[in-house]
Each structure stands twice: as C-alpha cells, then as structure tokens.
C-alpha cells in the first residue's frame, strides 16, 4: 500500500519538477511547483515526518508560493527574449545534469551503508511529532533556531529596502562618466599637477581677469606646461 502511495507521490513530484522547468508561462511554473510541494508533503508523511509535512504545506505551499504568485502577476510573463542565447548552454546543461544524476545514483546505490537499503530505524512513537521537534529546537538546536529568526529579520528588512522607491532619482539623473569622477581641486591644495608646474595660479598669467581653467569637451580643465624663467643670483 505504501509503495503505491510512494510511487504516486514520487511521480507527482517529478512531474511537478519537470513542469516547473518546461512550462513557458511562469505562472504555470509556479502552479507546477505547488503541485510538486504537495507531492513532497505526501512523501514526507510516508517517512513519518508529520510536522515537517504540515509545515511544508502551510508555510511553503501556502505562504511562499502565494508570494511568488503575487510577484509573477505583477511582473507578468516576461518579454519575448531579445537575443537568442545560450543554445550551447542547453547541451551543456543536459550533459551536466545527466552526469550529476548518474553520479548521485551511483553514490546512493553503490553505497555500503546498509541502512540505506532498509526501511530505516525502528519506528519510535513520537518521531516526527511537534513535541519532539519543539523539544529539539529549544534544547539541542537552540542556536540555529535563533539564528534562523535573525535571518528572517534580515530578509524582511532587505526586502523592504530593495523594493522601495529611491527619492526621485532614476538612471538618467546621475552622470556616470569618468570625467566627473575626479572633483576639481582648488589651487595650492598640493596636487602633483601644481608641483610640476602644470597648473599655475591665475595671477602669474598677468591678467587677473581670466581664470586659469579652460574646459575641453569632456568638461575637464585643460592644463598647459609652465614656461621657464631665468632667475639671477648664484
């Protein structure tokens, strides 16, 4: 009896997985994943992990997938692909997946772990119940529990930050070319250009009216090499 249920659930899970990957419309992919999650919950039940199965259904299929559905509805189906890309990637993907599956299968089937080929440890009543889970969470796994809650907090804050509108700026507002990365310096600020005489104070030109900066097309000041003057003395 359990074998039958196992096979039904397994086939459902695999079908859901294939559906996620293969369906064009992301909305349908999400629905396929929901189906997959429910099959997985059934498999969990077969393994006597009741709490996890319930959590899977309630949290995962119930909350996370609903969130997904909201976002997919907001974004839509996605535009037609602009450039055909990565056809070679399909071949690579196929090959890689096949290889990976074969390796994992070999790993599992060729394993010398005796227990894998059995049904598992003898069933202890209370295995998989909320009491046992709760006790483990609060005693043996307290630290991961607390860290997980911290992680949830971080994710929540992150999501809020990511999705909010920045105050009025868009891509076009900021000028990002290299000419404006260098802020113009004031004179006598000790730059090397001054030290080698490439930039002179305006009063040496002789007419205080003109500023010492000419701008070229990039908007940067044009520097000219200073002349040499013979000073008397030694």
């Amino acid at each position, binding site marked *: 009896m359990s074998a039958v249920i196992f096979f039904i659930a397994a086939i459902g899970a695999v079908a859901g997985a294939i559906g996620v990957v293969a369906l064009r419309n992301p909305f349908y992919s999400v629905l396929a994943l929901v189906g997959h999650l429910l099959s997985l919950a059934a498999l969990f039940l077969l393994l006597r992990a009741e709490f996890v199965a319930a959590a899977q259904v309630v949290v995962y299929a119930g909350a996370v997938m609903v969130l997904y559905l909201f976002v997919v509805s907001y974004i839509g189906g996605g535009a037609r692909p602009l450039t055909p890309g990565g056809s070679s990637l399909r071949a690579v993907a196929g090959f890689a997946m096949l290889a990976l599956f074969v390796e994992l299968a070999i790993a599992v089937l060729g394993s010398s772990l005796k227990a894998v080929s059995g049904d598992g440890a003898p069933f202890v009543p209370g295995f998989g119940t909320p009491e046992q889970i709760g006790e483990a969470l609060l005693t043996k796994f307290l630290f*991961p529990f607390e860290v997980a809650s911290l992680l949830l907090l971080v994710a929540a804050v992150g999501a809020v930050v990511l999705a909010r509108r920045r105050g009025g700026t868009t891509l076009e507002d900021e000028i990002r070319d290299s000419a404006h990365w260098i802020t113009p310096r004031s004179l006598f600020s000790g730059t090397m250009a001054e030290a080698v005489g490439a930039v002179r104070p305006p009063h040496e030109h002789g007419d205080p009216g003109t500023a010492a900066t000419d701008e070229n097309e990039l908007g940067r000041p044009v520097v000219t090499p200073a002349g040499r003057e013979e000073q008397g003395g030694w």
Partner: protein
Amino acid sequence: MAIDWYLIVSALIFCIGAGGVLVRRNPLVILLCLELMLNAANLALIAFARMHGNSDGQIFALIVLVVAACEVTVGLGLIVAIFRRRLPVDVDELRELQG
C-alpha cells in the same frame, strides 16, 4: 519503501532543478528551480532522519525551509526592483559585471 528510493527521487529532482537553472532565462523561473533543488535536499534530509530515527534531519529541513523563504523574499525583491527600473527581466541581458 527502502530509503534509497527516496534518495533517488531526491537526486532526480535536484538534477531537474539544476538543469532548469541553466536553461531558463526568466529570473523568476530560475528562482523556482532553486526551490526545486532546496526541496530535493529537504527530501534527502528527511529520508536520512528516518534512517537514523532521530529528529536532527527534520530540524535541518525546517531550517532549510526558513532559509528558502528568506531567499525567496530577497530574490523576489531584487526582481521587483529590476522590473521597476525598467531593465529587461532576463538574466542574459543583465550582464554589467562582464569583465
């Protein structure tokens, strides 16, 4: 059923999910395939928990669940932000990190 059947199923689902990550271009679907992989890992964890007979694997699976939820949250936030900036929602187009 013997435990190794569950493990085979888990491996199969993992590989399908990995293949989906490589093949699909819509970041939403890529995230979905990531979920597939995480679920496969969960299945394997529960199977091993059953094998050992204690709840360690189940706790692990619960934490994975939490992590998956957080990751989905942040990932979807990213995708929404991309969508809001009117950038194409296509991983092949988003390659400003090209070196």
